[in-house]
């Protein structure tokens, strides 16, 4: 049924339709509305056979999810930013133990400086933790990915993060098509655990593993992610058969491959999450003959872990250059997504550009993207670009630090320089 609602609300309803049995909740913006929404449904009796547990921290949230999942329950939680970091140790345990927990990460920057706005630093900091990471482009896809995530996680006994842009998606009201309970039940079978803590049939979960087998156990985690690489596109097909729409998969292309009357793309922009929408609008404009008829296309990465090396290679097979636009920064080297993409295209002889954009909620605008892509098309872009960076502010601070030893706290001085009275993003 079509409805106009907040992204968080859509996800809460979708998770409820997946019949979770344990929800662990600890509030942190911007995911709070999701667990609040599920909490209301548990309290009202709309969501039955589900225990809603308020915990005292994110570390506890993930620990309770681990216990619940090991006990055979379908477990869900949500977090963001510092909350994800605070639960990091348990996050690794969930995947190491092979427990199919589904967690929404409402993507938000990581401090310091403290910042509640969106970027992808939180999820990407956990890229090697063994969880599958799926990134949603719209609220519809966020909703759909949760339904797919429970199925994939439980098949493979691997936990999954469904990543959606904090505020930009979680707090946006837009149209979604909410599935029926019957549709979700037809797609998602009841949870059949591979391992379960049962007093009647005791097993150990979480034994010490020494050098004799640790590498083999770790390799198994990699092998399962490689299985996920096969299953994710199949699940998207199965999903389409039941729900009638394209959602999920490893990657999405747009104007990239010479179909739909397009003449292919010489430049392909690669990104994850909601910024793909703004990029597509920009590409539509730039492809118009009156705007120069730029041969430009888009590759959206939905599955960041496992990383679809082959799909990226195929998508970039006929282009001349690629631009990875990412809401993350690997301090000291540049891009995170870009590094992964570069691995995929090794030996293909493509020009590649990394663009770090939108950190801490900095708006990514069509105007800035148009200038950026135009420059890329002429191969005039630097290998690493920080989109809309205010160099005056940066250079003032660097100068200050050169002049005096006790230059003071940097962030506060930079805020003073720009005369900020309140946060703004437009």
């Amino acid at each position: 049924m079509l409805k106009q609602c907040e992204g968080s609300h859509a996800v809460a309803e979708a998770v409820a339709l997946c019949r979770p049995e344990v929800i662990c909740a600890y509030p942190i913006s911007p995911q709070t509305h999701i667990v609040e929404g599920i909490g209301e449904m548990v309290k009202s009796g709309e969501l039955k056979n589900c225990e809603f547990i308020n915990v005292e921290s994110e570390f506890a949230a993930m620990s309770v999810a681990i216990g619940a999942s090991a006990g055979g329950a379908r477990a869900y939680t949500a977090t963001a930013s510092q909350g994800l970091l605070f639960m990091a140790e348990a996050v690794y345990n969930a995947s190491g133990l092979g427990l199919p927990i589904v967690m929404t990460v409402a993507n938000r920057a990581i401090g310091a400086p403290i910042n509640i706005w969106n970027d992808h630093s939180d999820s990407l900091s956990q890229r090697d933790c063994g969880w599958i990471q799926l990134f949603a482009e719209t609220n519809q896809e966020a909703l759909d990915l949760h339904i797919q995530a429970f199925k994939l996680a439980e098949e493979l006994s691997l936990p999954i993060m469904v990543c959606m842009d904090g505020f930009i998606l979680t707090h946006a009201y837009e149209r979604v098509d909410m599935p029926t309970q019957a549709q979700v039940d037809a797609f998602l079978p009841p949870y059949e655990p591979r391992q379960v803590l049962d007093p009647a049939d005791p097993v150990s979960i979480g034994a010490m593993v020494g050098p004799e087998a640790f590498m083999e156990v770790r390799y198994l985690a990699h092998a399962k992610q490689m299985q996920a690489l096969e299953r994710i596109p199949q699940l998207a097909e199965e999903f389409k058969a039941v729900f009638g729409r394209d959602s999920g998969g490893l990657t999405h292309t747009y104007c990239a491959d010479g179909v739909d009357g397009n003449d292919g793309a010489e430049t392909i922009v690669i990104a994850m999450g909601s910024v793909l929408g703004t990029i597509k609008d920009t590409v539509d404009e730039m492809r118009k003959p009156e705007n120069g008829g730029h041969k430009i296309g888009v590759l959206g990465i939905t599955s960041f872990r496992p990383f679809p090396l082959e799909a990226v290679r195929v998508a970039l097979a006929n282009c001349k250059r690629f631009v990875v636009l990412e809401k993350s920064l690997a301090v000291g080297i540049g891009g995170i997504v870009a590094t992964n993409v570069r691995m995929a295209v090794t030996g293909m002889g493509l020009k590649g550009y990394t663009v770090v954009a939108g950190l801490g909620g900095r708006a990514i605008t069509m105007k800035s993207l148009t200038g950026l892509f135009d420059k890329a098309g002429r191969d005039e872009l630097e290998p690493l670009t920080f989109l809309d960076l205010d160099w005056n502010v940066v250079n003032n601070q660097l100068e200050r630090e050169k002049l005096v030893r006790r230059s003071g706290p940097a962030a506060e001085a930079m805020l003073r320089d720009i005369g900020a009275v309140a946060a703004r993003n437009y």
Partner: protein
Amino acid sequence: MFQVRIHGRGGQGVVTAAEMLSVAAFEEGRHAQAFPSFGSERTGAPVVAFCRIADKEIRLREPIMEPDALIIQDPTLLHQVDVFAGLKKGGYILINTNKTFEQLGLGEFVRDWPPERLCTVSATELSIKHVGRPVPNVPLLGGFAAVSGVIQLASVVTAIRDKFSGKVADGNIAAATEAYNIVRAEMAEAIMGGAHHA
């Protein structure tokens, strides 16, 4: 695509107004996207929310920097925040006030504007009268339906019923309807040639 920016203060229902506007547009079968400016909003602090309305899927995620219309829930913001930043020339402006644009010091700014696109309504008074609380956001949506013509009053009423129930819904519907009628009358007067506002 029609883009609306709403300015107000924390506690005036700025974000709720944008959300309800999107629901009203959805009720008419259109695509709509509403979102807040995501500040750490506090009661009384300047707050901004956005709403886009279109006939196809809205993919754009940037903040609205060049609005077609502005709803200003609190006129004390006029000289504190650059509420008019990027407003399209001749765009719609609806202000919650019992003063004229001239009295607000905006006469020069809107000199060449089509006068029927410049409207004011005392939405706070209307909400106190009908709802018993100073929350101007919903009556302003009624006024916005009138001045912009982008959504029907009936859709605003549906959005109100979607959000509230009982007496609160009834009061807000009465306030929105009265605001709608006031703005319609203002527009008629402006079109009749009265340089009432400017």
